[in-house]
């Protein structure tokens, strides 16, 4: 029974810590959700649970084309950037994990350098470059920098996954008559799928959440993404506070991320490679 009490004590301690972390992480989120359901008069009442519930804030943001347009931009730009960054990252990571080529260390080092580079310092040059190249305030104008900064992330994550795949599988595929491209497509890529999906989620979240580039490299609704568009929300008059609408929009843009994660989470099955080799 001594063991039992120790376990109960431990469970209790860990339970408390868990709850503390959950509260710390979730209270602001729930607060935003709560605010989004409050009516304009009660928004400053300070109570956690809205006194009077309303869908008005949600109805308001979907009333104008501004928010819907931003949502389309966000989804389009984030998805395109994710696809390109993951495809390029997969190929680069495979080369890094498998091949020995001159300049490999340099490539790895450079990509790490990009990841460490403060983005703020690049905003002004990028702004000027994009204006000269007519990329300013266009989808490619955001997609390009997103890919640049997402690539190191995807290369690093994916090469870790590729290193886990037994090399003998590739040799076996070659012996079975596969070209290197076939071996990659039919054996290695399916096994790397969990890694690819994990990377896709991380890259998507990075692109979806970006505010710095979105606010600096856009000027109209042509390419303004939701995080940037939120900052342009105003009430119907300048004396009106748009807090409720901003909160409603924040809740709306969180939903795609949650869906994205839930959808891919099923595919991130650990131990997919078990059974390939002995053991």
């Amino acid at each position, binding site marked *: 029974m001594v063991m039992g009490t120790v376990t109960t004590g431990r469970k209790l301690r860990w339970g408390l810590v868990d709850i503390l972390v959950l509260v710390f992480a979730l209270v602001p989120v729930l607060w935003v959700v709560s605010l989004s359901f409050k009516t304009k008069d009660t928004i400053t009442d300070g109570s956690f649970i809205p006194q009077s519930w309303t869908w008005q804030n949600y109805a308001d943001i979907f009333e104008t084309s501004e928010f819907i347009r931003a949502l389309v931009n966000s989804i389009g730009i984030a998805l395109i950037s994710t696809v390109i960054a993951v495809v390029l990252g997969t190929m680069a990571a495979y080369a890094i994990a498998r091949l020995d080529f001159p300049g490999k260390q340099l490539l790895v080092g450079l990509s790490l350098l990009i990841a460490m580079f403060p983005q703020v310092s690049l905003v002004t040059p990028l702004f000027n470059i994009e204006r000269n190249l007519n990329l300013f305030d266009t989808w490619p104008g955001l997609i390009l920098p997103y890919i640049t900064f997402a690539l190191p992330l995807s290369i690093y994550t994916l090469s870790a996954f590729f290193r886990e795949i*037994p090399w*003998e*599988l590739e*040799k*076996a*595929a*070659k*012996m*079975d*008559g*596969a*070209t290197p491209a*076939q071996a990659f497509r*039919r*054996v290695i890529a*399916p*096994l790397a799928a969990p890694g690819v999906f994990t990377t896709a989620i991380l890259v998507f979240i990075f692109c979806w959440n970006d505010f710095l580039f979105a606010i600096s490299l856009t000027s109209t609704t042509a390419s303004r993404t939701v995080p940037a568009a939120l900052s342009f929300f105003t009430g119907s008059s300048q004396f009106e506070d748009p807090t409720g609408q901003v909160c409603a929009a924040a809740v709306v843009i969180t939903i795609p991320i949650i869906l994205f994660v839930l959808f891919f989470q099923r595919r991130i099955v650990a131990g*997919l*490679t*078990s*059974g*390939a*080799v*002995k053991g």
Partner: protein
Amino acid sequence: MAEIVLDKVSKKYPDGALAVSEVDITIGDGEFIILVGPSGCGKSTTLNMVAGLEDISSGELRIDGKRVNEKAPKDRDIAMVFQSYALYPHMSVRENMAFPLRLAKVDDKTVLAKVEEAAKILDLTPHLDRKPANLSGGQRQRVAMGRAIVRSPKAFLMDEPLSNLDAKLRGQMRTSVSKIQKQLGTTTLYVTHDQTEAMTLGDRVVVLRAGYVQQIGSPQFLYDNPANLFVAGFIGSPSMNFVPATLENGELRSALGTTPLSDRVRRLAEAADAPREIIMGIRPENFEDVALVDPAQRPGGATFTAHIDVLESMGSEKFAHFTVEGEVATAAELAELAADSGSADVPGAESQIVARLSAASSAAENADLEVWYDADKIKLFDPTNGKNLTYTE
């Protein structure tokens, strides 16, 4: 079905290490050849060069008379079974076995028929829809075999395919590998470092040491007529006993007593111009409890008294381990063998002699026993270069 010829094939790594050196092997159509040797002897490298997974530094590899050095693995039409099986974990057993055919763009009906057929041979029919992760070691091994046989390649290459199985299963799979090979009649190159597999499976055995071919021949021939100390020590389990000896006036003096050489051995030794100091090799089965030897046979050998340290009774026979006094046979080959088998780490292992006695022997542990050995079965080796001085074709 094909003949594979390795013509002075060598492998030199960029750092200058010579892994395989001028290997000459001609593998006849349908022949089962075993490459055997201690770890690091270059046997897997040789196999990978035949497969096309490693480049050949020099020499020529011909399959069916055609040079294939530059061909990619997929163009050589060779199947390989890996030590780790290398099954594709995301495919069912059926798709694993069908994979080579799918790549060859064979139509679906033929693919399924061929897979069914191979599954029947290998007893895998009930498991066709399972994933490799849910199979036992033996089943995975059979799937790996199935993937190799399903497309009827020119040759099979097997890289220690049984070494991950437990002892009992290994014995069973050994028999079935041999049966399948005979049934299909496909040229096979098989790498192992288990010398039981080498003895039982192959038509011919190639013994490699540090990248050099030591001897090629049928298992029995290698056992009876090893070309040198290395082959003598490697082939056979328990392995041959080596004792330093002096050759003088047609007599062999060693820690195992003094024995006159038989006429046959003397003639061979003289022809080979044997030095005075030599290493004498004697197989465990050439010893016998003196009480059980026919008195008429006794003069053909020597008798000595051994103090038995350990006696292993196997039921059908007894293995007596004893230590001999005096010097220990030393040669580079023996040191290498000891290092590979791990006996270099066991103190006193070098001077241990193993004798296989009849089960009727009254030998007992920690007791003295009169042991006789057949002088005609002795092998004499030159300690400087390891050559067998009593070698006959």
